[in-house]
């Protein structure tokens, strides 16, 4: 394959990957964040005690997380069609990607919030804070560095997941690697795709690390 052609294919696939990861990442995190907060604060004796609902949501989250992504993609095709009007293409692929992101990010948010010293919640209660004020003024700001790390981890996983949505014609870098590199025996395409993916993941990770560090005031290094 000519370098020019490879570049064109790569450029297009890269655009599709960024589009899928970007939109699914934003939507999935926006939905996952409140679910994660709820999971972390709705146990017995916590801020919004609702142990039964907590357990049910926990079960759903676990179920969603244990479904292999490729099965999730085909299993929800009817829902995908309902949302986007089609079951194939990049936009259609965003639906299962978003659905996979929600429970993944929610669990990360939950653990980030559970990490916060219970003494801070007690101090805020002693100041007369409402449960919502505690979430907004104490939990979220204190968890911010961990939340940024969680978002980074989610985006990296999404880049991996996005390689699988070639199955529904989602396109993207992974799909390029499979169709050209594997099915058409073009190792140079495969290698290039892998290298581009490595660079992409590295970039996301180091940007995430840097932002998280900027917000982290827990040690003297700042």
């Amino acid at each position: 394959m000519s370098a020019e052609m490879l570049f064109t294919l790569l450029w297009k696939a890269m655009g599709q990957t960024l589009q899928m990861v970007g939109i699914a990442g934003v939507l999935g995190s926006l939905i996952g964040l409140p679910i994660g907060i709820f999971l972390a604060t709705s146990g017995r004796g916590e801020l919004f005690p609702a142990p039964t609902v907590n357990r049910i949501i926990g079960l759903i989250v676990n179920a969603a997380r244990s479904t292999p992504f490729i099965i999730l993609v085909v299993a929800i095709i009817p829902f995908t069609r309902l949302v986007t009007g089609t079951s194939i293409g990049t936009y259609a692929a965003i639906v299962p990607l978003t659905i996979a992101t929600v429970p993944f990010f929610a669990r990360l948010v939950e653990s980030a919030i559970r990490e916060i010293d219970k003494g801070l919640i007690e101090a805020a209660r002693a100041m007369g804070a409402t449960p919502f004020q505690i979430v907004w003024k104490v939990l979220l700001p204190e968890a911010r560095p961990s939340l940024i790390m969680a978002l980074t981890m989610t985006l990296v996983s999404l880049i991996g997941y996005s390689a699988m949505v070639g199955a529904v014609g989602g396109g993207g870098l992974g799909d390029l690697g499979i169709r050209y590199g594997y099915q058409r025996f073009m190792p140079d395409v495969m290698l290039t795709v892998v290298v581009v993916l490595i660079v992409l993941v590295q970039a996301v990770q180091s940007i995430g690390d840097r932002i998280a560090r900027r917000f982290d005031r827990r040690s003297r290094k700042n």
Partner: protein
Amino acid sequence: MVAFEAVTKQFGGRGGKPGFTALDGVDFAVPRGAITGIIGRSGAGKSTMIRLVNGLEKASSGRVVVDGVEVGGLSETDLRGLRRQVGMIFQHFNLLSSRTAFDNVALPLEIAGMDARAIRDKVGPLLDLVGLGDKANSYPAELSGGQKQRVGIARALATDPKLLLSDEATSALDPETTQSILQLLKRINGELGLTVLLITHEMEVVKTIATDVAVIDRGRIVEAGRTFDIFTLPQHDTTKALLSSSLGVKLPEWVRSGLQPQPLSGGRVMVRLVFFGETAFQPLTARLVSEIGTDVNIMAGTIDEIAGEPYGSLVVSYPSDAAVLERAARFYAETGLTTEVLGYVG
């Protein structure tokens, strides 16, 4: 200011099973404008007691009354209102790591819905009051333990509370820093007329600043009163045990282990003499020796200050024969010395 009336508190015990009893019929009153200490070993129930005052825990039975209002009967909304009038400081400071000293002090004001300008006017003077005017923009990680507790105190005072609760506020600090924090609390108590209720396991803390004290053991108040009285004449074993290390009257192990409850013929009696008020300034030891004879042995002793009053304690031993004991008794009656027989040795 705060009254505990027959308060009990049980934890756990769901489904008919009895739980752990943290407080067992506590009656206690905290006088307004004073610094009151509750002292006890860990697990004695003191943390539970202080948490009942601002409703962080609810009593299982009995009443906790703060400034005329029964805490247990308040709705969540009213409880939040009460909490804004009761400041609290903590052993581990509980400052938000993501906020500067200034913003930590501002937090209770934000929670109370105060606007940014009013908050600015309020926080600066508070940081000055606790001696951290130059640390407004420092994050907790950049402050020492003592400085963090000062931020904690400024934060607790932000909403102009009438009552300050201190939960082991100096237990994580070194002795020198502890003293400076205690002096700050004392100053605040004096300047702002704020009632302070503190819990601690350190006698040193109570001795330094509390005018009143309650001793708690296994969920019960075993002794309460003026700090000076409790410290000079402890009645309960728990108090004595807590005191012995702090007042320097701890006897060497080899002496203590040899103590017998009954006199031994030809043996000696071990007596603790307590000097305070009038007797603290008189040369009574010399007179004791001349009254009883020269065979008086000093085993341990201390001179100290409790809640600002001079106090001395001396452990002596002398022969336990009838004639000596009678002379000693006459001498004690004459001088008004307070004594306590610790035991007898051979």
